[in-house]
């Protein structure tokens, strides 16, 4: 069942969202996300890395993992770390999470509860 918010609650939510989106951390995060989405080289590298991780987990479960395969995955991880667009996105994401936690702390202090925990839907992760 959908929860109906009072006009006051909805207004406070809208202002809070607008200000969050206009913060430096979020602007940089969304810019870095757009750059990443439009960078075909970075996308190809991330797809390769994701595929290699899936293959590695599968081979690990089958106990058929070779040293060459581990080396190949490490090389891809290094390439991803050295890619400016991917690294820029990862840094911006870390910054925005740090900022969001600071903001959540403001809410917690006023309410005396951990607001983010109350927003969680049941089940792990």
């Amino acid at each position, binding site marked *: 069942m959908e929860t109906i918010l009072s006009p*006051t609650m909805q207004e406070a*939510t809208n202002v*809070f969202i607008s200000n969050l989106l206009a913060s*430096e951390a979020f602007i940089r995060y969304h810019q870095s996300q757009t750059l990443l989405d439009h960078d075909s080289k970075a996308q190809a590298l991330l797809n390769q890395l994701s595929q290699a991780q899936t293959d590695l987990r599968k081979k690990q479960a089958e106990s058929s993992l070779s040293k060459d395969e581990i080396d190949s995955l490490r090389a891809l991880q290094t390439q991803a770390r050295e890619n400016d667009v991917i690294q820029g996105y990862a840094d911006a994401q870390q910054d925005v999470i740090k900022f969001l936690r600071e903001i*959540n702390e403001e809410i917690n202090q*006023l309410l005396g509860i951990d607001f983010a925990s*109350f927003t969680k839907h049941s089940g792990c992760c």
Partner: protein
Amino acid sequence: MNDQVNEDIEIASSSIVKQSARDFAAAIAETPQFKAFEQAAYAFRNDQAAQQAMQALQQKQQSLRPLMQLNALNNIQREELLELQSAFTSQPVVQEYFSAQVELTTLCQALGDELSGAIGLNYAAACVASCCG
């Protein structure tokens, strides 16, 4: 390049965002769900019978924890635990507290969903340490 783009965008300072977060929290504090939760939590904290029932349950859980982790409780121990759980959860103030908690959680989940959808990040996952590491 980013800095060039930022020149055209009005940036909200950290203090403005924090103020709007406090206004958002103040609006939550005024909701019937939050007021009911605070009232139920106060009643629960000040109800002697409920506090005693909770302590008895916690002490038993603590003493049986190693066996519970090994799933090695015998029938008597399991029954003792169930009786203490029932004695705790049947307290009217405990039921009211749980019910108020469910109502507040439903409201916070709706707010969290709205925030997550707008900011493009899962609010709870970003702010709460994950159980999956």
